[in-house]
């Protein structure tokens, strides 16, 4: 969103309509011929498959690497204590549909918490966020970008170390050659855009060292 605003202040003639949804759903819609120009996926595979199916006009590119964060709005304890003793339910996005859900499920499986927790799945990461926000679930494994956007206090969330899950590599793919789409696609690679993404809670460089 901020990316589009930033681009539009430079190119006021460009006009966009943003359609948001879980990556899996949008992928299926594009495969079925949905008239989108540019697709920002929250994963790698869906854009690659679209390219292979001949739906893209250039190869997909990484625009961001997502970070997973544990949000527990009512936690007063040190995070290490919380990870050892939390016994409630944890919200995450559906691992079958959403990349952040997949990362969250991998994190739980890798022993991020000392104990096995009951999970509550939202259809996408936004819904999982709402489960925690409405107070129905005490904690959630969500995206850092989401928490930043909602201006959640940094005291209430804990960044999940990247060793717990495969990197959440997010790619975008250009689907048509509309001028506005090409312009925005190129803008994402500029340092201005990269700074916006960093502020929003993403990494923009693929880590050189293997992730620990």
């Amino acid at each position, binding site marked *: 969103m901020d990316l589009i605003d930033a681009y539009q202040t430079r190119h006021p003639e460009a006009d966009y309509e943003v359609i948001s949804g879980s990556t899996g759903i949008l992928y*299926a819609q594009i495969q079925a011929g949905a008239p989108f120009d540019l697709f920002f996926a929250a994963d790698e595979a869906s854009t690659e498959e679209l390219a292979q199916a001949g739906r893209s006009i250039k190869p997909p590119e990484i625009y961001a690497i997502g970070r997973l964060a544990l949000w527990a709005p009512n936690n007063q304890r040190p995070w290490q204590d919380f990870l050892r003793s939390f016994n409630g339910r944890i919200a995450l996005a559906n691992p*079958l549909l959403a990349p952040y859900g997949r990362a969250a499920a991998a994190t739980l499986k890798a022993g991020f918490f000392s104990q096995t927790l009951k*999970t509550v799945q*939202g*259809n996408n990461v936004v*819904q999982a966020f709402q489960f925690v926000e*409405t107070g*129905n679930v005490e904690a959630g494994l969500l995206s850092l970008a989401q928490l930043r956007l909602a201006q959640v206090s940094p005291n209430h969330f804990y960044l999940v170390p990247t060793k717990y899950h495969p990197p959440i590599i997010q790619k975008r793919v250009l689907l048509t050659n509309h001028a506005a789409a090409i312009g925005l696609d190129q803008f994402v690679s500029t340092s201005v855009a990269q700074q916006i993404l960093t502020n929003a809670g993403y990494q923009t460089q693929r880590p050189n060292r293997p992730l620990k």
Partner: protein
Amino acid sequence: MSADLQTLLISVQLAALTTLTLLVLATPLAWWLARSTSILARFCIPFIALPLVLPPTVIGFYLLLAFSPDHWFGAAWLQLFGRPLAFSFEGLLIGSLIYSLPFFVQPMLVAFRDIPESLLEAASTLGADAFDRFRTIVLPLSKQGFLVASTLTFAHTLGEFGIVLMIGGNIPGETRVLSIALFDYVETLNYAQAHKLALGLIGFSLFTLLLLQWLSKPGQALLGRRPS
């Protein structure tokens, strides 16, 4: 037990419990609405019909807020039963009761209104108390209404999707129902499994509608209703 079988079981349990609960709770309500001439009763009917016209997401949204331990309702429930309401089978049941209420009450209203007041008065003069009158007059005369209301409620609960998506949380063996499993199959492009569930649901729904059609045929001996 296979995942699909478990899902089917949860769906059937939810539909059956919703129907049974409404039989107990909504029958007196429908009776009151059918016989009462008070303003209150007339005001109640549109409120009960509301889930017929509202998108399920509206109900799901407010239930999600009400179920929260931050809200008095969710807090009271947590205090009483020691576990939260959202993303639990009990929570789904409450959602289904609200969502399916008009599907039960409307056919019962029609059935109860059809019972002539004179019959009840005659029974009363002959010394039948309220329970006798219900058992020997109301029940046989509204059998068809009960069958239609129960079948509709059961089938409608089985097909519920929007509310479950919002207050269910997709927990296997607790809140993952057929419509949600089907949605997941479609979203993950697992069309073979999706067809299996979808065709099953179409078959069941058709069967239910045929059953309803047959049940509402007038003069059926099975229904114990003689042409008047």
